[in-house]
């Protein structure tokens, strides 16, 4: 392997991999990046922690093809500090990497490229063009409901369930559930839904945000699924994340049929009220009580150590009165994720789950279910 590349380009490329490589690694190879000099004057840089892999392609002058894995951190630090605009990377005997730039020369101990975990082959995958903004929106509106409890790993991610021309994303932690549906321009060829890990989704969000900012053509961002992983492609970047093992719970059972009591209220006002009133709710449960009567929703919180708070919110409602408790965090997360001017809250009784929806076009296809608390 021998190639010549701009120092800054290389530093930027390596910078991206820094977040991926494991610091405290169980396998030494995972703290390395794989450098591959390919035909067509391309340098491919790959980093992986096994759960998440990122490869990026960069233009350079390839004198000799080949590949080598070297310590990600050290190469990055060296390249950042180089004196000249260009740098030559050359593989020397015994897996050493020679880095030359003007007067400075480095020799870094590397590992053979074969030791680097093989990224899934995706030449044969079916990729579907996606709209970065739309997918980003779907992820951001479901993501927060995924569980952080490591022992329930099948909930530590977002369930992707493509059904016909619809892509459905579902996340739950057992106390709340979010579902987002959007039209999809293609078929992933998945037999059943898959669970994408939170860590991978955070990285995917970064890439989608970049894509949305650049305002790229719609067809340049693509998503596909291999047997065990999800693959996202943008020009020059490929992100591969390992799917979570296990079954996603049958979430459809959790979503109540249309509730009897349908309340409509201003989103912004409701959000502010919840934030204000929850200031005095207990640190652990964040409980707030909702007292519903015709035309008014009273939001209360009570904490024996601190005191109590209440606020009345005008609502569109004319049915029976109802008292119900919720974790205010769960409500604010959802209300903040909505975009329409009005929120629609559906309730049945004080022990049945509440359903939150946006009352308007920007929130079409989005539903959140929040379990009540006994207070």
């Amino acid at each position: 392997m021998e190639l010549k590349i701009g120092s800054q380009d290389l530093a930027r490329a390596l910078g991206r991999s820094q977040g991926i490589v494991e610091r405290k690694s169980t396998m030494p190879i995972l703290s390395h990046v794989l450098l591959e000099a390919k035909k067509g004057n391309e340098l491919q840089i790959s980093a992986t922690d096994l759960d998440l892999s990122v490869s990026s392609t960069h233009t350079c002058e390839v004198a000799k093809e080949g590949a080598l894995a070297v310590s990600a951190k050290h190469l990055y630090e060296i390249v950042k500090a180089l004196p000249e605009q260009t740098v030559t990377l050359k593989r020397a005997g015994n897996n050493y990497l020679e880095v030359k730039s003007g007067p400075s020369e480095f020799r870094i101990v590397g590992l053979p490229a074969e030791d680097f975990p093989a990224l899934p082959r995706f030449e044969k995958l079916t990729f579907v063009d996606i709209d970065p903004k739309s997918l980003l929106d779907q992820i951001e509106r479901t993501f927060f409901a995924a569980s952080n409890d490591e022992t329930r790993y099948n909930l530590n991610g977002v369930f992707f369930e493509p059904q016909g021309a619809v892509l459905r994303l579902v996340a739950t932690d057992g106390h709340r559930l979010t579902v987002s549906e959007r039209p999809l321009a293609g078929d992933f060829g998945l037999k059943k839904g898959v669970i994408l890990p939170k860590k991978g989704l955070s990285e995917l969000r970064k890439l989608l945000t970049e894509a949305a900012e650049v305002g790229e053509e719609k067809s340049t961002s693509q998503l596909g699924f291999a047997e065990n992983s999800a693959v996202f492609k943008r020009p020059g970047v490929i992100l591969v994340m390992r799917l979570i093992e296990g079954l996603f719970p049958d979430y459809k059972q959790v979503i109540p049929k249309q509730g009897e009591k349908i309340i409509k209220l201003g989103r912004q006002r409701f959000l502010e009220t919840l934030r204000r009133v929850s200031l005095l709710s207990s640190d652990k449960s964040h409980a707030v009580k909702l007292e519903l009567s015709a035309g008014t929703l009273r939001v209360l919180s009570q904490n024996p150590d601190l005191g109590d708070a209440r606020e009345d919110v005008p609502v569109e409602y004319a049915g029976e009165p109802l008292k119900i408790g919720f974790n205010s965090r769960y409500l604010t997360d959802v209300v903040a994720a909505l975009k329409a001017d009005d929120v629609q809250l559906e309730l049945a009784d004080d022990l049945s789950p509440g359903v939150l929806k946006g009352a308007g076009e920007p929130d079409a296809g989005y539903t959140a279910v929040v379990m009540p608390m006994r207070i």
Partner: protein
Amino acid sequence: MPFSELQAQDRAVGALQAALRRGRLHHAYLLGGPEGVGKGTAARLLAQAANCEGPGARVDGLPEDACGECAPCRKIARGTHPDVFLLQEERVMAKAGRWEPKGGRTPSREIVVDQVRDLVDHRLSMRRFEGRRRVVVIDPADAMNVQAQNALLKTLEEPPEGTTLVLVSSSPDALLPTIKSRCLRVAFAPLPEPIILAHLVAAGQPPEAARLAAALSGGSLSRALGLDAEALSERRAALEGAASLTAADAGRWVAFAREHGDDREAAAGLGELLLIWWRDVLVAQAGGAGLALAELAPLTRRTAAAITPAEALRRRGLTERLLGALRQNAAAPLAIERMLIGWFHGR
């Protein structure tokens, strides 16, 4: 490096290869048998064969054997395959830089519950990375403490799809019954003396020392290789001493315990030899030939005639307890003394 590198384990290897041939690996294996007879190697070979991409690859089922040449085979041999995990004692893994104890604790000499949880919650919660079959090797499985074993139960019963757990243990009966009942047991036999002898001679040991080492190894190649000539004759003498102690002379037990309790390693070595010797006693009582410690045959037969098989088993159990106590930092002289009191005064 194919299965043929394992010698004299035809039955165990046959069972594993038959499963490979059918393409139906069990989800949990327990490879049991004396130390140093190839259990760990067999576990590695199983992982290699299940993931081999060499010429042996078949359409229906898995390759029966590993080629040792293809990328997965080499990765597994070097320990860099992302779908093959080796779980060892915390101390060993920490030293190799593959594990960091939580909260800066001193690494334990057991396999602790944190390690098992990390395996179950992190490593097995994701789908496979590149391999055809994920293999988890736990070696030695009896190093898992009770909490760790309990944390493994659910996974052991029903591992994620395409995953095989291989427990390797030289004292499989020390595992919880709930663990044992969830595994398919594959028994490894002690190696025949001539094979060990041939290995030792090939490794350049003088024939006379090699013969003694082979005899004292109890069918374990690793133990035979670890014994140097001097330590060997010392241990043999110690064993002979212990075997010829009698109930009548308590003063000699105490002296014996003090003499051999100085050096933990030596005490543990003696304990292991004693286990082999008690096995010999039982073999002699059952009328079998083929004593592992042929040199001590007269003494063995005398003991065999003097006590009942139940008593021999009981004394063997006490010897196992000695080894357990030594692993857990007991004072060696006291532990030996306790074993001897148990031998002669226990009920």
